[in-house]
């Protein structure tokens, strides 16, 4: 199976930090977003405190991958998780999408070559979430 991240919510870790602070801070979400975009270090610090009890803080994003896989391989992924969506492009090519929570929870559920590649694909766009998933899955 080949997998390539082709589109994603920009500043995805800033969105995770905004989400975390929205629930517990009296500041408005737009204000939090402006502050955190202007101060990526602060966003990184907030994301570093992530514990994921309410996993919804990882849901305010959408990542899209181009996948090359057989129908059986795709079926296996779909049976494992209902939080990754597929659209066929013909042959063995697929568009797959989901959010960071889907990636994190799938990685905790199983350890396969596909999941390792899936997790590795987010390293550049969400380095702290990538490290977080790696810590939890060993």
């Amino acid at each position: 199976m080949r997998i390539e991240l082709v589109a994603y919510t920009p500043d995805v870790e800033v969105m995770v930090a905004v989400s975390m602070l929205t629930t517990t801070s009296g500041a408005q979400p737009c204000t939090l977003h402006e502050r955190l975009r202007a101060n990526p270090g602060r966003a990184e610090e907030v994301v570093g405190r992530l514990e994921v009890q309410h996993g919804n803080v990882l849901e305010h994003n959408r990542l899209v991958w181009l996948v090359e896989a057989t129908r059986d391989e795709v079926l296996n992924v779909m049976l494992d998780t209902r939080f990754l969506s597929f659209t066929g492009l013909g042959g063995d090519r697929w568009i797959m999408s989901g959010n960071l929570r889907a990636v994190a929870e799938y990685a905790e559920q199983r350890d396969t070559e596909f999941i390792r590649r899936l997790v590795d694909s987010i390293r550049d766009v969400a380095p702290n979430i990538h490290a977080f998933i790696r810590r939890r899955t060993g």
Partner: protein
Amino acid sequence: MKAKLLAHTPLAPLKEASGVLDAKSLLPHLGYTFAVERISRACSHQLVRHRGASFSQQSQRYITVKRLQERVVTPPSVEKAGDDEFKKLVKEASESYQRLVDRSVPKEDARFVLPNAVETSLLVTMDGRSLLHFFGLRLCNRAQWEIRALADGMLEEARKAEPKVFNAAGPYCYQLGHCPEGRFTCGRMREAVDRYRVNQG
């Protein structure tokens, strides 16, 4: 009330990568995250009925409600009625809430006396197809005024970000070319369609 699109998955790189699919087929793969500020809890209760969406809402367990009288949404019909019933109840609720907090009742319990009118803010994320469905239902003339105003603000933002996708969005009568409300139809489809029509060329 304020609705602002904070982030979205861009359509262009996805169209390029997929090659064969049109924008409509790609909608389930696109995510849109809005900041929604200062709506009533009555409105947020309606919003969270859209189950495909994700929400992060200000928590009344952690955030103390201060100056409740300045933190409520007053419906226009109540303003128009002009009597003090609403203000009186909000004032009483405010005082009761504060008394409970002062007596060390946890915020998560003191909030039980707060009215539906109390303001809240949240993040909401929907995929493109769910967002079109949300617009179809909540921009309808039959939708409640506050969530319709919210949907209007969100549509304006979505059209600015992805006009090719969302110029076709609006109430279902605009999207479908007919009213699906059956015997509940408002009978003002032409007016609704005209309101949302834009040049889609």
